[in-house]
C-alpha cells in the first residue's frame, strides 16, 4: 500500500469540478479539447490509484469499497477515451457549422460536471447525496442532448428531461421511505441515511416499508437504467445528441443508475423478512431484453439501433444480478464492463461514420470496409462483439449468464436464450449491409481517431481469451458482496 499526499477519492471529485470551471472560462476550442482530455486522464489516474493506495476511512458522506472501485475505474477510463474521441469529433462539427465555439465551451464544461456527478454517485456513502449526484449527472446530459437545437434534439431532450425527472422523483420518494424505515433503529439525522450504517442495521427494519421503498427505487433508478417499459427516453437521447455523449450515456450513465439499484438490492438482501429483489429485477430484465431484441429489427437509424442494443444489454445485466448467486453476479459484472467498453467503441466508430456520410440512416450507410477500412473493420468487430460471438468478452459473460440460469431456473433460460438469438439475428442482418456491399455516399478518406476504439476492442478481445486471475478474484469478491 502506498500513501499519497492527497486522497485519491478527493482527486476523483476535485479534478473534474476544477476542470469544469476552467473550461467554462476558456474561449478557444482546441485548448479546451486538450484540457478536457488531460483532466479526464488525470481523473482516470486518480481512480486507478485507488487500487494500490490506502483506502480512506469510511465517512458520513464518502466511502470506497471493492464494489465502487470497479465502477469508478471503468467510469473514468471510458470518460477518458470518450474525451479523446470527442476532441476529433468536435473539430469536425465545428467545421461543418453544426456547433459554434460558444456551444463548445458549454459542452466541455458540462462534460466535466457530468463526470463529477457520476463519480460522486459512486463514492457517495449517503443515499441522499447519491440521489443528488445522479440527478446532477442527468441534468447535465439533458443539456448536452439538446445542444444541436434541432427539432429532433429538442424533442429528445425534453422527453429525456420529463421521463428522467419522474424517475428521479420516484427514486427520492424511495429514499425517503428508506430513511423512515431506518429512523427507529439508527436514530434521527444524518446517520439514518449513511449506507454503511443502513446495511449494518437493515435486518431490524420494517420489511413492508423496505419493500415499498425498493419498488419506488427500482422504478425510479430503473427509468435511468433504461429498463422497458420505462425506456422511452433512451433511443431519442442517444440518437439526437452528439455521439461522444451517446457513448457516455450508453457506457456510463446507465451504469450509474444500475449501481444505485445494486446498492439498494444489497440493503434489501440484508433483511431476511423483505421480499427478494431478484424476481422483480429478473422480470424487468427479461422484458427489456426481449422487447429490445424485437425492436432492433425495425430500426432505420444507426444510433437508434445501438441504443436499443443498450436496452437489451442492460436487460441482460439486470437479469443476471436479479438471478443472484456468485456465478450470475460475476457474469453480470463482467457483462457490464464488457458492454461499456464495446458499446462505447461502437459509438466512436458510428460517430465518424455518421460524420462522413452526413446521415444516420442505415440504408445510406453501406460498404464501409471497402471505403473506410479502419472504421469499417472496427465497427464490424464491435458489432460481432456486441452480438455475443466468440471469442470476444461478451460471449464469455453471456455464456456464463445462460449457464448459471440453466443451473438455477432452467425454464427462465428459454426466454433468455430466445431474446439473445433474436437480437443476434437483427445485429448480424444489419452488419452485413453496413460493412459490405456496394459503397454509398461520400467515400472520401477521413481524419478519425482510431486509438480509443481499437483500445476498447483490444480489451474486449483480450478479456474473451484470458482474464487475469487478480481480476477474477476481485470480481468474485464483489459477487460475494452482492449476494
Amino acid at each position, binding site marked *: 500500500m502506498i500513501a499519497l499526499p492527497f486522497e485519491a477519492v478527493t482527486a476523483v471529485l476535485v479534478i473534474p469540478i476544477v476542470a469544469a470551471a476552467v473550461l467554462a472560462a476558456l474561449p478557444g476550442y482546441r485548448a479546451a479539447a486538450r484540457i478536457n482530455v488531460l483532466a479526464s486522464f488525470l481523473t482516470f489516474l486518480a481512480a486507478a490509484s485507488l487500487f494500490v493506495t490506502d483506502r480512506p476511512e469510511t465517512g458520513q458522506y464518502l466511502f470506497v469499497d471493492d464494489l465502487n472501485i470497479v465502477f469508478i475505474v471503468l467510469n473514468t477510463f471510458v470518460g477518458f477515451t470518450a474525451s479523446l474521441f470527442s476532441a476529433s469529433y468536435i473539430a469536425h462539427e465545428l467545421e461543418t457549422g453544426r456547433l459554434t465555439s460558444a456551444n463548445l465551451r458549454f459542452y466541455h464544461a458540462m462534460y466535466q460536471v457530468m463526470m463529477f456527478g457520476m463519480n460522486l454517485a459512486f463514492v457517495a456513502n449517503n443515499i441522499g447525496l447519491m*440521489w443528488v449526484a445522479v440527478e446532477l449527472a442527468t441534468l447535465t446530459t439533458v443539456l448536452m442532448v439538446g445542444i444541436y437545437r434541432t427539432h429532433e434534439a429538442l424533442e429528445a431532450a425534453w422527453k429525456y428531461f420529463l421521463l428522467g425527472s419522474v424517475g428521479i422523483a420516484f427514486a427520492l420518494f424511495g429514499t425517503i421511505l428508506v430513511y423512515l424505515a431506518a429512523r427507529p433503529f439508527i436514530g434521527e439525522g*444524518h446517520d439514518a441515511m449513511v449506507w454503511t450504517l443502513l446495511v449494518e442495521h437493515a435486518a431490524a427494519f420494517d420489511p413492508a416499508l423496505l419493500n415499498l421503498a425498493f419498488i419506488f427505487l427500482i422504478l425510479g433508478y430503473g427509468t435511468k437504467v433504461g429498463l422497458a417499459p420505462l425506456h422511452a427516453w433512451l433511443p431519442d437521447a442517444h440518437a439526437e445528441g452528439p455521439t461522444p455523449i451517446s457513448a457516455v450515456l450508453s457506457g456510463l450513465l446507465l451504469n450509474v443508475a444500475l449501481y444505485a439499484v445494486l446498492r439498494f438490492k444489497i440493503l434489501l438482501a440484508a433483511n431476511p423478512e423483505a421480499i427478494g429483489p431478484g424476481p422483480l429485477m429478473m422480470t424487468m430484465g427479461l422484458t427489456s431484453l426481449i422487447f429490445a431484441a424485437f425492436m432492433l429489427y425495425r430500426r432505420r437509424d444507426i444510433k437508434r439501433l445501438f441504443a436499443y442494443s443498450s436496452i437489451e444489454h442492460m436487460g441482460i445485466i439486470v437479469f443476471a444480478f436479479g438471478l443472484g448467486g456468485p456465478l450470475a453476479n460475476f457474469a453480470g459484472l463482467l457483462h457490464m464492463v464488457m458492454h461499456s467498453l464495446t458499446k462505447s467503441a461502437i459509438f466512436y466508430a458510428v460517430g465518424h461514420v455518421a460524420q462522413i456520410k452526413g446521415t444516420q440512416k442505415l440504408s445510406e450507410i453501406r460498404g464501409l470496409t471497402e471505403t473506410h477500412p479502419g472504421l469499417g473493420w472496427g465497427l464490424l468487430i464491435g458489432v460481432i462483439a456486441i452480438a455475443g460471438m466468440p471469442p470476444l468478452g461478451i460471449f464469455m459473460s453471456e455464456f456464463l449468464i445462460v449457464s448459471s440460469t440453466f443451473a438455477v431456473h432452467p425454464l427462465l433460460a428459454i426466454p433468455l436464450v430466445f431474446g439473445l438469438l433474436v437480437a443476434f439475428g437483427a445485429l448480424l442482418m444489419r452488419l452485413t449491409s453496413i460493412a459490405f456491399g456496394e459503397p454509398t455516399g461520400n467515400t472520401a478518406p477521413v481524419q478519425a481517431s482510431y486509438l480509443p476504439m481499437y483500445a476498447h476492442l483490444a480489451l474486449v478481445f483480450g478479456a474473451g481469451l484470458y482474464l487475469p486471475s487478480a481480476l477474477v478474484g476481485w470480481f468474485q469478491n464483489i459477487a460475494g458482496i452482492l449476494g
Partner: protein
Amino acid sequence: MYGNLSFDIAHLLAGGLVLVSFMMLYQDRLYALINTYALHALVLSLSVAWQALVQHAPHLFVTAAIALGFKAIVIPVALHRIVKRLGIHRDIETVVGIGPTMLAGMGLVALSMVVILRITPDADPLAREDLAFALSVLLLGLLVMVTRRNAVSQVIGFMALENGLILAATGARGMPLVVEISVAFSVVIAFIVIGIFLFRIRERFDTVDVGALDEFRGERQ
C-alpha cells in the same frame, strides 16, 4: 405539547394540498393553472412551517420560506410573463377529458391511501398519514403531467410532484437538511433547465405545445 390540535392542523394542511392538486386537474386555462400552482405552493409552505413548529426543527422554516418565496411567488410571476410573451394564454388542450381525469385522480388517491396505510401500521400516525397524502400529491402531479400537452402545464405538473416530495421529506421526522436543500436546489436547477428549454423551443417553433414536437420524431418519415 400541542396535543391533538397539532395533529389536526398538520392533517388539515396536508389534506388541503391534495385538494389543491385536484383543483389543478380541471383548470383549462394556463393563467388559472399557474394561480392554482401558486396556491399549492402556499399550502405547502404553511404545512412545512407547521411541521417546523411542532417538530422543533427550525431548519424546516427555511424550506417553508423557499416554498413561499420561490415557488408561490417568483415562479408563478415568471410563468405569467412567459405565457404572456409567448401568447399562449388560450385554452389548454387536455389529452384526456376532465371527467375521466378526475376519476383517475380519485383512483390514485385511493391507491396511495391503501398502500401506505396498510404497510405502516406501526409508524406514528402523523408520519404515516402525511406520507399517504404526500404520495397522493406526487401521483396527482404525475397525472397533470401526462394529461397535458402544453410544455408550461407539464412543468407545473412536475413542480406539483416535487411539492409532494417535500411534504414527504418534512413529514419524516429529523430527515437531514441535506435532503431539503437538495430538493429545493433541484427545483431551482429544474427551473433553469426548463427556462432554457422554453426559450429554445420558442426560438425554433412558434408553439410550446409538446404535441407539435411529436411531428419531428426522428424515425417517422
